[in-house]
């Protein structure tokens, strides 16, 4: 009965696999099906407690066989801190999975990113943000862009060819590290990872750490780290999930996932097809794709896009070890249909942008004993981007490749990475630590790279320690990096936590760095209109980041209120910028900019039973030596709610974000102040979802961008005699509605 309610229980198979002789009990939360690590458990009957233990990081503990005489065949009461006690029949020498209801509405979330062990965000020394599957579903999020769009302190930018970029804490996306299960995502175009290429269908949880995590993750992790945790082991049996998503703007997405057990191993196979039919202001609210005349109506501001992704993940337990080999392949085609060319409108230039990604690797999880454990990954990532330009005859629809230099281009990146860390972790120990190495070998090929191919190797040793002294926690970390381009660097960090019963104070000082990218070192882009050459003497960007957090958690009867207040200051030295060389002809990359960001943010999270209300506000200022008039500040407000209507089992969710106006002051060549700005805008999304047929089907209806934001005005004005120029930048495709169906069929073995 209880078992049938468990669908997503990560990490369970491992326990069932190598513990056949033992009686392993795993506690999971009834709310989110996540394991409950590090809680005190008591087992007994109404009169006495016969056993007590603490759960490990997987939410498990072993029930001693010799005590079965007392427990066998009768119900025992299982109690855990903060959870309602429940009666359960323990089965000897089997895996027992117990779903517990929280005693009060919890707001606890678990993170692994940059941690020694899975830990609740309340207890982690560093503050982190978690976006779980329920929130992704409620947002109707298909890819990372959709989910980050309404997040506080994160801003999304859209380029119709390069894709979706972001900024975090006022810094642009080249300083944000994006990881999937701890493996860096490669393929930065113009410094940014295209967020819309990162599909969420196989993602269980997104962990966001603001501020540098360079000690653990190395280059790029200056402004923050976004780690996508994919769906992992589930309970034994076969699971088939099929999701269908149709949005009125012209999104047709389908994905499926099959999980099955082969002996003690678990195999996951998944695939998806996403199609977007493009959008322009004049599009009707809904229109199914159909054949159209190749006239001026073929041009669209948001380009049509087709996506395929498929992968296999195999979890193999061997004794105490778990190996998880995986392979994931991604294909995207963007078709940029050209505007028919005047004066006769009989031809057009069409561009195709094709991106291929193949990620493969093995995750290794090896507990050595109850104190030590090895965590490792070996991964190979491949990224290829092809641009083809055709001249299309619109009368005959024939097309031919153009011959102009630069019209056809293929860029490839390969990355081989390996990380292994030895972790010593015991929940109640005053001293825990990890030490490890991290090796990245990246190469790029393309006609715009010097000699056609270049490589960079980075080898790092890192260590983190966690020292617990009563209410104080101290987490120092240090990374030593050797990079083939600029030799070596040390990156230290120190985090501090002071926890009282209701109040938690945190502070952190961390340095971060960004190694020069292959393009910045070795680009060779010289033609009639360009002369950009790489600079092999570039130094890494270096940052220092200071932050403080004050958090308070109040349990008000059945309600919980969590309020966080955060302030931070970051400075980045020798930031790499593209500039003209002193000779005046060549453009190259130089360590020229000195960038600073300062900000405050606050969130309030209120839970009443299953209802949740969240409010957030942020105020971020940035400046650099290339801007004038000091900090340029911009506000943000977010609000979200999730309300559960018990009788018809409907969950209503709404997400709102106000993105403030950004005003930047530059100095023109004559020294006059020049301003440029991007106007403010409001985004509001809504959804309602209801399960049917004992949760085998979940239907979600939603509306995105209810306030119909399409373009946001941008302008630059030099304030003097010259007039300003006004343009607009695309932000959204206007109001749309969607319907999402989730099938979830489970067969017990």
């Amino acid at each position, binding site marked *: 009965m209880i078992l049938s309610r468990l669908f997503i229980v990560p990490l369970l198979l491992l326990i069932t696999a190598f513990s056949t002789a033992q009686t392993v009990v795993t506690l999971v939360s009834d709310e989110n099906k996540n394991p409950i690590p590090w809680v005190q458990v008591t087992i007994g009957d109404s009169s006495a407690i016969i056993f007590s233990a603490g759960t490990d990081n997987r939410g498990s503990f072993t029930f001693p066989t010799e005590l079965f005489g007392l427990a066998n065949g009768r119900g025992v009461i299982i109690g855990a801190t903060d959870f309602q006690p429940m009666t359960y029949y323990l089965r000897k020498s089997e895996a027992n999975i117990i779903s517990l209801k929280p005693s009060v509405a919890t707001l606890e979330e678990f993170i692994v990113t940059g941690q020694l062990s899975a830990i609740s965000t309340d207890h982690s020394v560093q503050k982190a943000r978690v976006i779980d599957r329920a929130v992704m579903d409620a947002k109707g999020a298909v890819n990372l862009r959709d989910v980050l769009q309404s997040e506080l302190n994160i801003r999304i930018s859209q380029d119709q*060819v390069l894709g979706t970029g972001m900024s975090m804490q006022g810094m642009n996306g080249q300083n944000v590290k994006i990881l999937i299960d701890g493996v860096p995502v490669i393929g930065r175009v113009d410094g940014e990872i295209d967020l819309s290429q990162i599909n969420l269908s196989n993602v269980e949880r997104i962990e966001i750490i603001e501020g540098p995590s360079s000690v653990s993750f190395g280059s790029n992790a200056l402004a923050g780290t976004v780690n996508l945790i994919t769906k992992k082991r589930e309970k034994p049996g076969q699971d088939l999930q099929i999701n*269908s*998503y*149709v949005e009125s703007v*012209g999104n*047709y*997405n*389908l994905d499926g996932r099959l999980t099955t057990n082969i002996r003690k191993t678990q195999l996951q196979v998944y695939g998806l097809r996403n*199609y977007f*039919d493009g959008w322009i202001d004049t599009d009707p609210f809904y229109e*199914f*794709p*159909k*054949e*159209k*005349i*190749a*006239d001026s109506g*073929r*041009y669209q*501001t948001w380009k*049509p896009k*087709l996506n395929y992704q498929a992968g296999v993940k195999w979890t193999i337990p061997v004794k105490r070890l778990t190996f998880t080999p995986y392979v994931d392949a991604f294909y995207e085609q963007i*078709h*940029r249909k*050209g*505007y028919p*060319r*005047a*004066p*006769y*409108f*009989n031809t057009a*230039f069409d561009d195709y942008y094709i991106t291929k990604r193949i990620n493969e690797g093995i995750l290794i999880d090896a507990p050595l004993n109850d104190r030590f454990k090895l965590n490792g990954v070996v991964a190979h990532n491949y990224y290829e981007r092809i641009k083809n*330009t*055709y*001249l299309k005859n*619109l*009368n*005959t*629809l024939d097309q*031919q490749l*153009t*011959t*102009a*230099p630069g019209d056809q281009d293929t860029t490839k990146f390969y990355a081989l990475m390996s990380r292994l860390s030895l972790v010593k972790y015991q929940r109640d120990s005053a001293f825990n630590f990890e030490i490890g190495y991290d090796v990245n070998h990246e190469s790029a090929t393309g006609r715009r790279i010097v000699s056609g191919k270049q490589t960079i190797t980075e080898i790092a040793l890192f260590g983190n320690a966690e020292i617990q002294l009563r209410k104080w926690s101290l987490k120092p970390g240090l990374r030593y990096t050797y990079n083939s381009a600029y030799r070596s660097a040390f990156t230290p960090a120190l985090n501090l936590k002071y926890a009282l019963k209701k109040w938690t104070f945190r502070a952190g000082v961390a340095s971060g760095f960004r190694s020069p990218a292959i393009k910045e070192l070795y680009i060779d882009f*010289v*033609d*009639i209109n*360009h*002369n950009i050459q790489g600079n092999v003497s570039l130094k890494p960007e270096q940052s220092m980041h200071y932050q403080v957090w004050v958090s308070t958690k109040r349990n008000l009867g059945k309600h919980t209120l969590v309020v966080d207040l955060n302030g931070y200051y970051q400075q980045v030295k020798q930031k790499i910028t593209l500039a003209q060389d002193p000779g*005046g*002809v060549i453009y190259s990359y130089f360590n020229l900019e000195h960038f600073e960001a300062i900000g405050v943010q606050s969130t309030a999270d209120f839970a009443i039973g299953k209802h949740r209300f969240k409010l957030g506000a942020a105020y971020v200022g940035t400046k650099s030596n290339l801007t004038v008039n000091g900090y340029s500040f911009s506000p943000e407000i977010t609000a979200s709610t999730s309300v559960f209507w018990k009788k018809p089992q409907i969950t209503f969710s709404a997400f709102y974000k106000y993105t403030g106006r950004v005003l930047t002051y530059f100095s023109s*060549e*004559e020294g006059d102040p020049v301003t440029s700005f991007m106007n403010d805008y409001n985004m509001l999304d809504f959804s309602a979802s209801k399960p*049917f*047929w004992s949760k085998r*089907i979940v239907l979600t209806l939603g509306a995105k961008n209810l306030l119909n934001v399409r373009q946001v005005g941008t302008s630059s004005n030099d304030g003097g005699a010259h007039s300003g120029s006004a343009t607009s930048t695309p932000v959204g495709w206007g109001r749309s509605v969607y*319907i999402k*169906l989730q099938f979830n069929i489970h067969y017990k073995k």
Partner: protein
Amino acid sequence: MKQCALTVFLLVVLAINFGCEKDELPKPFTGEASANTIQVSMGSDYANQLFFELSSATIVSQNNREIWDLGFSCVADSRHIVLNSSKYMALSITTEIDLIAVSSSTPVEWIYDDPSGSEDSSAFLNWELERVYILDRGVSILGQQIGKMKFRITTIDESGYTIQWASSLNSQTIETAFIPRNDDYNFAFFSFTSNQTVSVEPPKQEWDLCFSSYTYVYDDGTPYLVTGVLSNRNLTRVIESELSFDDIDFTYAETVVYTTDIDIIGYDWKFYDFDLATYVIQYDKVYVIKSVEGLYYKLRFLDFYDQSGNKGAPSFELQEIVP
């Protein structure tokens, strides 16, 4: 019943999920280039300079734009010297009169010829005999720096110019050449690659327009390499008309005031549209041209790409204006 309705609903939702890119339908053919439409091609990397004669509507001569460095005026009493602005050449005036004394450590301040072609805005304005000038020979078609050199003029008279140079800034080897004036031409051209005069422009009475890249200098002094049309500076006159192509008649062409600027047609009849990622023609720009023979023509551009989609191939409508 409820189950059945649900099933139907699910099937409908799944059915509409198969959106895909549909083929386009051919668009009927529209418009056609008129009989007086001409297309010329500089090459997609703008490698060539094309000299065009209006009366025959043909290219009378063409050359690779890298083959020359300086042009020396052939007009008897003129001292006008031009830089090859099609390859982004620049000049720096030194304080020296000794070629050997100038080296790569000599301070430089680059100046450019004004794109209008006026002698009084040229880099070599009021040049002095014996004075050493540093030449930046510009950028090759492949985008590489060609190099810097030092140069001076030792004599000038009705017959021509005597020049001295060293092929690099630190070179001690001085070479000398004489460049004769030839009255049939506007300029005599000299190359520091072949160290001799080279044939570039056709005889001055035989061409009207030159399709070429050239250096445009913005108001703030920033130079930028553009591609367009320059006119025969001594003989052809051009004006950008405010009238429409059809309204321009002989009376207008005869009475309108022409300027002597050579870049009236220039480069801005097209612009690069970043949204469309292609060059777009400004059709409303119409030019009236008085040819070397004194005939009147009107011209407007239609395209910057050839049949295969290569840029650098302007096509234009050209019509003689007759009374």
